[in-house]
C-alpha cells in the first residue's frame, strides 16, 4: 500500500463547543447514524488505506467507544488497522509547560514515532469537520504524477451565508494547479476555492518539516511551514467535485444536516457504488412506524419507534417519538425520547434527552435550540 492515513479528531473542537463539550469533533453524531470521523475514515478505507492513525487530544472516550478495535471499518488488522495516537507527553518532553499540544504542528510532533515506523511513501492527513465521500486513490495518483510535496484537496463552493464567525481556508492556484495563496478567512460572499482540510503529503517531506519545526520552535503548520514555502516547494491542489459540507458552528451543523433531506445530496454522499460510508454497528432492530405515525421528508435511523409526527427532521438511532408528539425541522440524537404531545421545532437534542409530555420547544433555522446530553426538559 502506498499511503497511510492520519486523522485529527480534535482540531476544530472549539468551533462547536455545544456538541464537543463531552466529545471530540470526530465523534460528533451526524446524519442519523454516523459520527463525523466516519466520512473521512470510510473514504480512506474505501480507497484501500488499511493503516490509519487517529490523533486525539482530550475528551476522546466517546471516540474510542465509537472506533473500538476498528472492525466495523475492516481495520481490525494484525498489521496496520487503527492506531490511536493520544497526546505524547513524557516526563522530560513538554515537562516545563506540562501542557497538551495546542496546534496541529505540535500534534504532528507527537506522531513522529508512528510515521517513522510506517513504510508507506505517502500520508493522507484529514480533519473531521468536512463531510464528503472522496476517492483518495485519484488524489494520490495525481500527487505521485506531479511529484508534489503536498497536494491540497480543494472544493469550489459557494459558502456565503455561513455564520459570520466561521473561518475557512481559502486557496488560490494557477492553471497548472500550483498553490499560489492560502489563508484562513471569513467568507461573506461568492464562490471560493476552499481547502477541505485534507491533504496528501510525502512522508519523508512531512517528517523533515516536523524535524525542522522542532529545531526552530515553529508553532503553526499553516503559517510557519506552508505559507513560508509557497512558490518554493512543489505544492499542488486537487479539485474535488463531489458532495461537500463543512461544519464550523452549531448553525452550520444544523444547516449541513438538513442538506441530507435533499435526494441529490444523499445520492452523492451515500449512494456511490463501492464507496459506502461505514460506521459502528449497533444492532438496533429496524424502526417501527406505529399506527397513527406521520413521517414526511425525514432521515430516520434504525431502532426508532415513531408514534407521532415527524417532518423535515433527522432522527438518530433509538429515538422514540410518542403519540401526538410533533417534531419539525429538528435533529434528535441517539436514544432521545419525545413524550406524547410534546412539540419541537428547530431543536437539536443531544443524546439521551427526554422531552416530557406536552412541552413545546422552538428555535429558529438560523439559531437552533440546543439541548445538552442527558437533559430532561
Amino acid at each position: 500500500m502506498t499511503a497511510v492515513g492520519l486523522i485529527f479528531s480534535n482540531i476544530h473542537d472549539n468551533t462547536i463547543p455545544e456538541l464537543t463539550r463531552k466529545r471530540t469533533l470526530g465523534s460528533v453524531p451526524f446524519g442519523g447514524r454516523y459520527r463525523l470521523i466516519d466520512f473521512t475514515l470510510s473514504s480512506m478505507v474505501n480507497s484501500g488505506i488499511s493503516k490509519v492513525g487517529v490523533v486525539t487530544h482530550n475528551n476522546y472516550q466517546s471516540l474510542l467507544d465509537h472506533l473500538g478495535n476498528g472492525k466495523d471499518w475492516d481495520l481490525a488488522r494484525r498489521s496496520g488497522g487503527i492506531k490511536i495516537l493520544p497526546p505524547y507527553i513524557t516526563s522530560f518532553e513538554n515537562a516545563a509547560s506540562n501542557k497538551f499540544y495546542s496546534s496541529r504542528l505540535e500534534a504532528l510532533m507527537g506522531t513522529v514515532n508512528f510515521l517513522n515506523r510506517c513504510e508507506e511513501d505517502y500520508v493522507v492527513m484529514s480533519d473531521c469537520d468536512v463531510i464528503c465521500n472522496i476517492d483518495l486513490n485519484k488524489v494520490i495518483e495525481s500527487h505521485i504524477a506531479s511529484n508534489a510535496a503536498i497536494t491540497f484537496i480543494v472544493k469550489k463552493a459557494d459558502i456565503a451565508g455561513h455564520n459570520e464567525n466561521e473561518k475557512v481556508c481559502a486557496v488560490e492556484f494557477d492553471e497548472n494547479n500550483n498553490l499560489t495563496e492560502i489563508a484562513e478567512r471569513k467568507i461573506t460572499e461568492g464562490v471560493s476555492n476552499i481547502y477541505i482540510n485534507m491533504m496528501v503529503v510525502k512522508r519523508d517531506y512531512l517528517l523533515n518539516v516536523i524535524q525542522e519545526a522542532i529545531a526552530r520552535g515553529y508553532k503553526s503548520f499553516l503559517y510557519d511551514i506552508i505559507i513560508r514555502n509557497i512558490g518554493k516547494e512543489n505544492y499542488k491542489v486537487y479539485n474535488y467535485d463531489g458532495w461537500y459540507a463543512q461544519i464550523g458552528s452549531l448553525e452550520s451543523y444544523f444547516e449541513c444536516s438538513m442538506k441530507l433531506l435533499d435526494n441529490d445530496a444523499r445520492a452523492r454522499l451515500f449512494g456511490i457504488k463501492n464507496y459506502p460510508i461505514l460506521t459502528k454497528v449497533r444492532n438496533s432492530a429496524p424502526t417501527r412506524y406505529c399506527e397513527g405515525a406521520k413521517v414526511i421528508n425525514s432521515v430516520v435511523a434504525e431502532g426508532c419507534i415513531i408514534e407521532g409526527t415527524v417532518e423535515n427532521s433527522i432522527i438518530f438511532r433509538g429515538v422514540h417519538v410518542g403519540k401526538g408528539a410533533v417534531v419539525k425541522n429538528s435533529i434528535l440524537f441517539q436514544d432521545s425520547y419525545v413524550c406524547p404531545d410534546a412539540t419541537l421545532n428547530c431543536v437539536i437534542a443531544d443524546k439521551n434527552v427526554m422531552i416530557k409530555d406536552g412541552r413545546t420547544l422552538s428555535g429558529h433555522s438560523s439559531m437552533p435550540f440546543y439541548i445538552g446530553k442527558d437533559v430532561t426538559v
Partner: protein
Amino acid sequence: MFKKKECVAMLLAGGQGSRLYALTTKTAKPAVPFGGKYRIIDFTLSNCINSGIDTVGVLTQYQPLVLNEYIGNGQPWDLDRVYGGVKILPPYQGQKSADWYKGTANAIYQNLAFINRYDTDYVLILSGDHIYRMDYAKMLKYHKEKGADCTIAVIDVPIEEASRFGIMSTNEDGSIYKFSEKPKNPDSTNASMGIYIFTKDKLQKYLEEDEATEGSANDFGKNIIPNMLVAGEKMFAYPFEGYWKDVGTISSLWEANMDLLGNKPVLDLGNQEGRIYSRNLAGAPQYVGPDAKIENCYITDGCEIHGTVINSVLGAGVKIAAGAYVKDSVLMGDTEIGAGATVNYSIIDTNVEIGAGATVGVAKERAKGITVIGEDVKVTNGSTVEDGAIISEF
C-alpha cells in the same frame, strides 16, 4: 489445543425448506431473511451468545453458499473466538465412507469428533428455522438440577393445534413418560420445540446404537428420543414461555413478520431481553419522502420511501417510488417498487424489481393466498402477478 467447553451447541441448518418454495431455490432456509434486517438463523445464533454458549457447530447441507458466507467467521454474533466460536460443519468424505447427512441424528453422529474435541459435558441441539428468544443457560441449569439425560424444551400450544407437533406427556415433576409425533388424539399440549440438551455420554451412546441399527431414519424425533424413553433414561420437559414460531411455511413466515408490527407488537425486538445480532451491511439511514405515507411498518436502513406503505416489513435497501402502494407485505431487501405499482399481501425476496404500474397480488381480504416472488425476479412494467402465485422466474 482445545479448551474444555461445558456445553457445545449443534445447530441443524441443513434442511431444504421445500415448503418455502421460491424463497429457498437459491438459499438454505436458515438464511432466509426475516424481520427486515435479520435472517432466520440470527435468532438461534444470538440466543447462543446471549446464553453464554460460545461454541456452535452449524450443520449445513442444502445450498450452503449464502449461509456459509453469511455466518462467515461469526463476528456479528461475537462468535469469532480463538477457542470455539462458530464452525460450519458440512458433510464430508471419510476414508471408509462418504455420506450426505441422512437425518438429524446422523448429522450429529458424523460430527461427534467435533463435539469431543471440546471435552464437553452437555450438547445442545438446535434447529435453524425457528423465531424465538430463549436463555439456554436456564434450560441447562434445569437439566443439571433434574439430573436428566435429556431435556426437551416444550411450549404450551392450543389443543386443536397439538396434532401438528411432537407432543410430550409429562408427570408432575416434568419427567416425560410418553412422546408421540403428530398424534391424532393428543393427550397433552406440551409441544416439542426441537431444542434438546443431552448429557454428552448418553447422546454418544444412543447415536452410535442408532447408527448401527439398519433401517433407522436416523432422526431425533423418530428414533433417538423414543429409544431413550423405552430404555428408561431420565428425560424431562423444560417449559418455555414466550414467543416461538416455526417459520417453515409461507403463511407462518408471513405471520411471524406481521407479529413485529403494531403499537404493542407480539414480537418486540426493540426491548432489551436478548438482543438479536445480524450481519449489517452499510446502508444510509432510511429516507421518507415528502409525499410518503407510512402506517404500521417495520423499516430497515437504506430504504427510500416515496410512496405508500401499510402493514409491511421492509428489509434493507428497499426503494418505493412515488405513487407506489404496498400493503400487508414482506419485502426482504434491495427491492425496487416502480412508480404507481401495487403490491398486496405478498412476500418478495431480495433483489426483485417490480416495474412501474405493475400489480402484484390482490388485497388480503379478497386474495386466494399469499403471492411469493423469488430472488432476482424482474416484473415488467404494467404486468400483473396473480394472487397466490409463487414465482421464481418471470
